[in-house]
């Protein structure tokens, strides 16, 4: 077996490149605590309407004593409940979303709020929204707040494209 020296060199360059990317990934995950939503929390989606946490009066935005904000959403063909929410920028947010029927997706433009919403599970996203980031993609309102769309981004049936809401991001 013979391997050309140039080929050998390219093999090591490629390996180094791949290893470097792997190290970066582990670094951002471990040191900066950047992880995709992975809470493995089960819920009975067939009885979501009877679950105390996702009852209608608990949906939407709730401020906690520690200054953080919890947003609870229910996604069901073909609407997001509630359809409009208002959240402060620069504040730690916890998004908790559940599906009442099929598979949905949740993506808020200009933010890193993104998760699949899988029947049988609660999806949880931790983030802080930057007003500058959403201002680049959203609609800037007269009071300085910014409105960005919240999409269902997983095909859920013929009404899928119409399943969207709005997130109004206020100055903190």
């Amino acid at each position, binding site marked *: *077996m*013979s*391997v*050309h020296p*140039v*080929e050998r060199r*390219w093999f090591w360059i*490629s*390996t180094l*490149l*791949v290893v470097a*990317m*792997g190290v970066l*990934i*582990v670094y*951002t*995950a471990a040191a*900066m605590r950047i*992880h*995709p*939503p*992975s*809470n*493995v929390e*089960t819920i*009975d*989606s*067939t009885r979501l309407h009877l679950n105390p946490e996702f009852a209608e009066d608990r949906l939407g935005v709730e401020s906690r004593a520690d200054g953080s904000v919890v947003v609870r959403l229910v996604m069901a063909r073909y609407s997001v409940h509630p359809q409009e929410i208002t959240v402060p920028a620069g504040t730690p947010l916890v998004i908790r979303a559940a599906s009442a*029927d*099929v*598979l949905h*997706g949740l*993506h808020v*433009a*200009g933010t890193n709020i*993104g*998760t*699949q919403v*899988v*029947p*049988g*599970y*609660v*999806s*949880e996203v931790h983030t802080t929204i930057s007003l500058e980031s959403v201002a680049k*993609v*959203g*609609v800037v309102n007269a009071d300085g707040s910014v409105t960005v*769309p919240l*999409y*269902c*981004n*997983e*095909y*859920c*049936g*013929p009404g*899928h*494209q119409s399943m969207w809401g*709005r997130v109004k991001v206020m100055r903190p």
Partner: protein
Amino acid sequence: MSAPGPARSVAPRGLALAHLWVAFGLFAVGSLLGLFQLLARERVVAVPAATYYQSMTLHGVIQAFVLTTFFIVGFGYFVTATSLSRPVLWPRLAWLGYFTMLVGTVLAALSIASGASTVLYTFYPPMIAHWTFYAGAALLLVGSLPWTVTTIAMTARWKRENPNQPVPLAQFGMASCAILWAWTLVGVVVEVVFQLLPVSLGLSGTVDVGLARTLFSWTLHPIVYFWLIPAYVALYTIVPKAAGGYLFSDEAGRIVFVMLLVFSLPIGLHHVFLDPEQAAGWKLLHALGTFLVALPTLLTGFTVSASLETAGRLRGGRGLFGWIGKLPWREPVALGGILALVTLLPGGFGGLVNASYALNVMVHNTAWITAHFHLIFGGAVVLVYFASAYALWPRLTGRRLASRGAAALQLWLWFVGMLTLTVPWHSLGLLWMPRRIAFAPYDPQIVARWQPYSGVMIVGGGMLVVSAVLFVANLLASHRSRPEMPEPMTYAETLEPVVRVPALLNGFTVWNWLLLALMTISWAYPIGQFFFIGVHKALPWGVR
């Protein structure tokens, strides 16, 4: 390499043509549907959203499952027979497989046409299609098994009869493809047979969605390499010869095919990075594995470029880049390979972005993703499928290609059209446009930013349709062109003759055991957890 034999007589002409015509005939239909969807999404033609999604289901099933599987099986039989210089081992079994796949395809197509199975080509539960959709999909998959078994059996027999001889690289690649396919199928077949078919038939009242998505992700990554490996086989063993050069390294090819098999299977969780039913540690493990699979593609880029360089220099190219201009740019097989190699570069870059554990959330399920796989599959891989068809056709029909000029034009049109389609499409993803939307009913300020890009995409889609029609018309006309005794199929020779290769690079036994170990590590817990974390199953829902 094997002793020269009567290669023409062993080529399974009828079998290969039957497979390739299903692949390419439906490919043309699928391409038209793609353009239709572009026009519908921009409201150039007004159709109900349900029609858009129905078209999208058919487009995806045709291009991702029918074009690929029929092409690979047909191409595979041809490569196996001609590279080993022996006829296909069990022709009746091969035809049985063909008709099974055909019945499955027709069943699934009718099911989609009825409107009862608009579940897109990913068919995520708990949305449940009519049972005929799953039955059709299962038959299409099961019908490919005779090819899988034949490819492995013919390799094993050849090795027994030629002890200590290196298996020809083309066949080594196709064998890795067949073994990979057997491993790949496990996930989706278990999902379809034990979860989706029973629910669609009313035999089961609920479905474990987390388990189903995890099983599907088992299949979702290696299936891409099932589509890719035959293209790499052509890039290593057909394209350099068509360009008038030599394969730079036989060993590099073997290492690449082994890597594709071993690395592409234990990494599927990167498709469910944003799913709540899998924990972060497992996703991170699969993310790291995903970067490893970039390695064989980086090596392929090098080896195929170096092989083309030998061709350019033999044709009189001088200097660092002078050989590029000397490549046979009018030769369709070489041209298709070159353009595919160029496409692989931006396509592979996009893939690394998607694989990035933390970055993925920014592009997940946006237009970026669809743009990515159209570029790398519809661009790079399909260009090699075209080039392979141009190499095979004269040997399958015994006639010369009707028009080499039209073939070259078709390849350029596809290359430019695919870039015109996918470059703005990637941009749309970065502008937060979701994938899979029938139209964009969002705030007008947001939608207005997308429109210029969508307009360019339509131009690209138009070029692709013209190219697809030209391709099929040329192949069709080649059945009536001037008869010509074709040269027997031979594969690229290496710069240095390959006399011996290490046993590890001449078979897959050790690699299969390694793979079993890696699969156990990567999947035992992510799949097993659903049996003890207390899942709540979901009710099935219709497609409306």
